[in-house]
């Protein structure tokens, strides 16, 4: 077994994901099977291989780091707040964060 119940509880905690008992066990079983399958990557010797974090070579990608630092108008706050579950313009309201 690659992943046990404790691992699942820890990961769900990290992901801020409420999982029921049945989900914990079902996903554990399925993910265990997937991790077992993923284990086949260990057949490959990857020492000396540079990890590939992005697709585009430097000469293909846009020169994002070189663009001019311009101020552009943006007046979307009202539209954005309209989508919030509990807006209090110009803020998003959330349950109490700091206990006193």
């Amino acid at each position, binding site marked *: 077994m690659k992943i046990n119940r404790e691992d699942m509880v820890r990961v769900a905690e990290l*992901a801020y994901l409420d*999982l029921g008992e049945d989900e914990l066990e079902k996903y554990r079983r399925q993910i265990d099977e997937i991790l077992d399958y*993923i284990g086949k990557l260990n057949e490959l010797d990857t020492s000396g291989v540079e990890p590939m974090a992005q697709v585009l070579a430097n000469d*293909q990608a846009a020169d994002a780091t070189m663009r001019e630092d311009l101020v552009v108008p943006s007046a979307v706050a009202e539209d954005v707040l*309209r989508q919030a579950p509990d807006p209090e313009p110009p803020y998003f309201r959330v349950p109490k964060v700091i206990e006193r």
Partner: protein
Amino acid sequence: MTTDWTIDGVRTALTEKKISARELTSEFYKRIEARNPELNAFLALSPERARKQADRIDALIAADKPLPALAGVPIAVKDVISTRGIVTTCGSKILKNYVPPYDATAIERLDAAGAIILGKTNCDEFAMGSSNENSAYGAVKNPASTDRVPGGSSGGSAAAVAAGLAVAALGTDTGGSIRQPGSFCGVPAMMGSYGRVSRYGLIAFASSLDRIGPFATSVKDVAAVLGVIAGRDPHDATSTMAAVPDYQKEITKPVKGLRLGVPKEYFGEGMDPAVRQKIEAGLEIYRRLGCELVDIRMPHTDYAIATYYIIATAEASSNLARYDGVRFGLRVDSDSLLAMYRKTRGAGFGDEVKRRIVLGTYVLSAGYYDAYYLKGQKVRALIAKDFRDAFAKVDAIVTPTSPAPAFRIGERSQDPLQMYLADIYTVTGSLAGVPGISVPCGKVCGKLPVGLQIFGAPFAEAGMLQLAYAFEQAGGARV
């Protein structure tokens, strides 16, 4: 009245005043009304926005002004692409009533080109799936056989085009989500190179893999839509500065003498014999057209699924952290902030999305990062090298799109790993960042479409489309 509309057909009918853009739009809404209750391809319709755009086109025609490239062309858009003023759910309960305040760049460009956005199409939740059964709003049915899945995750877009409910559609492809449903529904479907089409406004699943691309009823129309949506966008730093060729002009060039790589690894066990027979008949067409078929090896193909499900889930676990009940979408109230996050996400996400968030979080977590995520990135580099090595020898690579035709609804939904393995021929190109297209290549069991997949070198979309067009013109769909 024409029933099978193409982009050229729309233009001719409009300029010859056989139909107005407004009438054409209504005609498509009538088709949708008649067929969608059964297919469930559309999740939302946008008649108001569509009619406004149609009136703009009709005004241009009345004034004898030049028409933009896609004037009056009715288009469907996958529900993971942001559309201003049109509900965009990503097939998820967590975004049930979400209305984007802006258009994705691809949508802005379609709009400027005169296309008419009919509405949003059903898909697997956050584009995670290969059958469209993971939508919170119900499965989509395959128009070719309604007891079958349309493929996924862009199943609604593929089904809409195949059933004649839109002339073209946008989908997104992360591991095969355009090409595989294109194959299952029997329509040409392509993803450009990573960086070819701006991802701005595409609601992220796995940012190093996600791509927007077109479905249409012909390769020529696929090329036309790609030409409109492709190109540099300052809003997406990964969009390329490379110029956009005139794809429609390029595709008619002869293919004689081109070298096509046929990788042995894509014809192994697990492939449906009937599919194999069709693909071999398809390869015969290329031989007849004067292409040279070259046996090649892509030795890391067998590791692609494992690599993909590490990288895609890791990126997803990070991207989907934004659904926290604060700024948009669902909130499940609770007395503390953390409990609100957990409950909102637990209630809002569906089964497959939760499974992938957990897996992605796990492979990124302390103690497992090197063994899984870093290992995955290294194998990804080897898979990309397979493609580079191949393109040093051949002009394009030809494979099946999927090892099997469309399966029955419910047939695979209980076993996630079996579902993942269906993506075996498509995830490779996703990881490498190369362009890929699926073109219809006959039918099996008398009704189930098969797709032939062509991979091109990075930013060699024109050559890839040229091969797809030649195949289609030579009768590829009827082999």
